[in-house]
């Protein structure tokens, strides 16, 4: 697979649980060294998708290749090539930070390379100071840091990180993203799921998942530009978004600080004393989902 810069290639991945269609025909690609964000609300199917890509859950239909290996036909080869951090930081609380890393490293490597990998991960993730503390005593941010270090202790080419920042404070979240980018800088591809809008802006490219389907795909700039082409965004003084909702040409309105942010149809006239604004990823998210729900009603 040398020379192939596409590290993950999902083709019509689909998964049913009984009558529930958790993931419906999702396709996308992740390139070498790319940080790819999978953005979606809770229950959108992000975790199911990541589990299929990691080889721990068999797709009902469709397939994906991860670093050249098929998740349907050769899941064990996939597992050897990836790093996977589950949604809850999966660390053994009674084991120290170093022991947790040693255990995970031993699943992939043996002998001196395994020991080197542990020391290397301790350094890369700045865990040297807590190496001999029990994982159960760590704060949420440090536990997440350990969870990430475990996932990539063997320096995989591809890493799947399921909501690595959920429940963390902003500083800890920023630290997690810095670490993810540091790994990407040495060529690793990372697929990161999140439901934080601002985090999507940090990704090279974003796939928006809603109701098990991929509803948008592109760089944050592309997604925002696509929305900007179809809607206009304004800030108006006031404190009552309900006043605006339902008016002709108004798509949505909500309170933001001391002003109301309104989204208008492209041909609707701008209200008086309205200040134009740029769309954010939150706008992309809300408007895409609104469009999806409108389709679903039809």
């Amino acid at each position, binding site marked *: 697979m040398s020379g192939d810069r596409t590290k993950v290639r999902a083709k019509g991945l689909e998964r049913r649980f009984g009558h529930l269609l958790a993931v419906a025909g999702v396709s996308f690609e992740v390139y070498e060294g790319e940080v790819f964000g999978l953005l979606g609300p809770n229950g959108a199917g992000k975790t199911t998708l990541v589990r299929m890509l990691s080889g721990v*859950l068999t797709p009902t239909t469709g397939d994906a290749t991860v670093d050249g290996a098929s998740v349907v036909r050769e899941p064990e080869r996939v597992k050897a090539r990836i790093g996977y951090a589950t949604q809850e930081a*999966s660390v053994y609380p*009674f084991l120290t930070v170093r022991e947790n890393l*040693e*255990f995970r490293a*031993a699943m992939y490597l043996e002998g001196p390379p395994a020991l080197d990998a542990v020391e290397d991960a301790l350094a890369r993730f700045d865990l040297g100071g807590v190496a001999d503390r*029990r994982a159960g005593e760590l704060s949420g941010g440090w536990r997440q840091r350990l969870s990430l270090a475990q996932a990539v202790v063997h320096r995989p080419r591809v890493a799947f990180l399921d909501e690595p920042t959920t429940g963390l404070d902003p500083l800890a979240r920023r630290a997690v993203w810095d670490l993810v980018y540091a790994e990407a800088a040495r060529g690793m591809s990372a697929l990161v799921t999140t439901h934080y809008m601002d985090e999507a802006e940090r990704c090279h490219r974003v796939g928006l998942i809603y109701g098990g389907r991929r509803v948008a795909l592109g760089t944050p700039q592309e997604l925002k530009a696509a929305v900007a082409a179809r809607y206009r965004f304004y800030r108006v003084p006031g404190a009552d978004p309900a006043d605006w909702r339902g008016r002709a040409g108004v798509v949505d309105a909500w309170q933001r600080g001391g002003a109301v942010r309104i989204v208008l149809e492209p041909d609707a006239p701008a209200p008086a004393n309205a200040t134009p604004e740029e769309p954010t990823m939150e706008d992309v998210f809300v408007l895409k989902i609104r469009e999806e729900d409108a389709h679903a009603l039809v």
Partner: protein
Amino acid sequence: MRWSRVRAVAKKEMLELRRDPILLRVIRVLPVAMLLLFGYAVNFNLKHIPLALLDRADDRISRTLVRELEKDDKFEVVARAESEEELKRLIDRQQARVGLVVPAGLLERIRAGKGVRLRALVDGSDPTFAFQVQVGLQKAVGRLNARLVAARMLAGEAQPLPLALEPELLYNPEANTAAFMVPGIVGIILTQIAVILTGLAIVREKETRMLESLIATPVRPGELVVGKVLPYLVIAFADTLLVLWVGYVVFAVPMRGSLVLLLLLIFLFVLGSLAVGIVVSARARTQIQAIFGTLVYYLPSIFLSGLFFPIEGMPRVLQAVTYLIPLRYFLEAARGVMLRGVGLDVLYAPFAALVVFTALMLALATMSFRKRLL
């Protein structure tokens, strides 16, 4: 199978176990506590049975009878009643479990060569107990009879009794309950540690969501299973040796046969039990489910293995079911080796049954443990 992965899993399991404050204590204390409990409490050899006496004769013979009853501390005369009503009342209130009525003029009637009937009221609510009481009474009366006959023979007045039974207990002459129980307790402990702890060990990973991370690595099911099982194999062995040692020191349980054969037997049984634990844990999602799952295996094992209730006394259908209980074969073989000192030439059948059981369970365990979530 990559050994470094097996070792890493086993090491991790040991570390977790060592640092778990409760589990470690359970493993250390439970086996010996159970042994002491069963050894002392489950005693089929009753002593100091409280007896109420209504002695209307109060002569030499009736006093000799009391001495015979109290011999070996079998019975203890706790009360002397004045009437049959009082005797009955003492049993009703459980102050005595047996009431014995000695009729008036005992000595005179025996001298006259007449037979005398001794009425005994026995609390029959517990059949095992009632049986032991009857046997004890018969023995005491038998001894007294023998003395009376001997005395009259000296006087030339009587012939010896035509038949006399002299039973000789083999292997366990003192009817030491502990000797009989210890092999069974070893079996119970092995079942408990092997099945329950192994079952919990894997389900715990599921419950704490660690299993998902684990199966997303290249670790093979066999490596995971062997690595998980190894620490418990060591623990079960250590616990077994401890129980055997305590049994030997405290209860003087004999070890007449080959220790090597016994250890081989234990190894076989533990391996099979560990596999059962894995089968259970592959299906259970929570630790509670795993515990109930293992009870389904554990309880019939205890009651149908012949540990407490002789298999010979069970209805035909249940007797057939006991052939499916591995603990039955373990007990048969362990008692054979420890108490009777016999070897494989005698015990080939239970050994073969255990080999089959262990092989089946190991196969089932490997098949049931898959590396997929659903």
